[in-house]
């Protein structure tokens, strides 16, 4: 009982800390591509830590649904991040990180022109 409660506390605090890092990253990062790192990976890992803390309740319904949410987010968060990154690439959003090199062949000749970003 006692170690389980301590583990729950530690996991909750870890999750809140990791999510704080993610939110700070979204404020601090310069462009969409780097903001995606913070918002999809860090915040998602914080949610996973909080879901793992639900083991401390020892309620089967809570643990099962928490596991369902974790698996669902594990499947869908990369898909959403990929769609956002692809949209940024198609709309010609610039990489504003200092010293960033676009290695995707984005500026090569022969690439079909895309619409202007508004």
């Amino acid at each position, binding site marked *: 009982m006692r170690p389980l*409660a301590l583990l*729950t*506390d530690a996991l*909750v*605090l870890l*999750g*809140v800390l990791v*999510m*704080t890092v*993610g*939110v700070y990253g*979204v*404020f601090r990062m310069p462009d*969409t591509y780097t*903001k*995606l790192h913070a*918002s*999809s990976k860090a*915040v*998602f890992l*914080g*949610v996973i830590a*909080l*879901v793992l*803390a*639900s083991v*401390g*309740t020892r*309620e089967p*319904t*809570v643990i*099962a*649904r*928490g596991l*369902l*949410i974790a698996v*669902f*987010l594990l499947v*869908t*968060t990369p*898909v*959403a991040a990929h*769609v*956002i990154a*692809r*949209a*940024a690439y*198609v*709309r010609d*959003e610039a990489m504003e990180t200092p010293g960033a090199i676009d290695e995707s062949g984005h500026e090569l000749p022969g690439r079909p022109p895309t619409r202007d*970003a508004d």
Partner: protein
Amino acid sequence: MHTAVFYVAVLWMTVLLALSVVSVLRARSALTRILALDMTILILIALLVLYSDVNRVSYYLDAALALALLSVIATIAAARYHSEGKLFS
């Protein structure tokens, strides 16, 4: 879970939720706004999971699951509409 940890976590995550709403409002491009909305819903899901951990009932998790479903559909639809001009080709 100890009560003090719960209060600290809920207070801190409410601050995080407000900060992410601010990042939605201050976003410079539409895709950054979509991304920040996605992050806001993830934080909301985490808040619901935390409440469900403390109260030991699973009703909050149903709402969290519905929010997760809606958020992924909304993100994919908005980003695809922004890039392609239509949802499904």
